[in-house]
């Protein structure tokens, strides 16, 4: 697959919008025949980025009702998810991965998503926009078995 192929859509920057975005991701991933393991990784990253906008994006600048997220899923030649919002500036690529506290009482229920972003993506790039942020998350395409792939036969 070498020709550029991508899908885009725009959603309200809310939890309802995040749920709709998840449905959209599944629809276009099926259309593009992406492998399930890759779709899982993309959705983990999408949920973290989108819910960050819904939860924190409106503080101090926008009202929650005006928040919007535009998603682009590029499936060829490379795999990338581009999340563009009109939320307050936040460089997610510079956010530290917070280690979980050793004591349960000290653990915060939120804030663990940065570790998921790092684990399930290949790369993360933030660009500040005049009225928001653009985050590009890249993913490795799982290798399909080649014609010379070794075939293992198990016998008892």
């Amino acid at each position, binding site marked *: 697959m070498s020709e550029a192929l991508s899908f885009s859509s725009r959603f309200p920057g809310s*939890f309802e919008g*995040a*749920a709709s975005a*998840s449905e959209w991701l599944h629809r276009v991933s099926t259309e593009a025949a992406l492998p399930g*393991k890759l779709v*899982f990784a993309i*959705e*983990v990253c999408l*949920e*973290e980025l*989108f*819910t960050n906008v819904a939860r924190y994006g409106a503080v101090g600048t926008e009202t929650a009702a005006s928040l919007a997220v535009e998603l682009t899923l590029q499936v060829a030649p490379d795999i990338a998810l581009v999340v563009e919002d009109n939320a307050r500036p936040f460089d997610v690529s510079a956010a530290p991965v917070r*280690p*979980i506290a*050793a004591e*349960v*009482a000290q*653990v*915060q*229920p*939120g804030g*663990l*998503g940065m*570790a*998921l972003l*790092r*684990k*399930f993506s290949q790369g993360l790039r933030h660009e500040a926009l005049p009225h928001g942020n653009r985050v590009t998350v890249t993913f490795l395409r799982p290798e399909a078995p080649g014609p010379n792939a070794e075939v293992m036969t198990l016998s008892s």
Partner: protein
Amino acid sequence: MEWTVVDAGNGVTLIEVRGRMDVAGALTADPVFADVAQNSDNLIVDLSGLDFLASLGIRTLVSACKTLHAKNGGMVVFAPQENVEQVLRASGIDTIIPIATDQAAAEAQVKL
């Protein structure tokens, strides 16, 4: 997302979850987990039927764990699918919510 809450006996409540704990799933499961955590001594969660878990679902699990821990209770999850287990371990919550292989191991571990 679907779930079943079962009294497993000996002060242990079992929640079997099925489907996807995505944004929509986590928002509907959150009050269920909160209620069970508030009204149970120990909680084990069967994740074998769970196909998806991410940051909102992690938040739901951690909140329940904290509620139980504050009452000296415990929480163990068991039998997650490979992708879901990766999420649990990558987020680090396996250090506060142990992952058991099956229900018997979870029941034994949650009462330690």
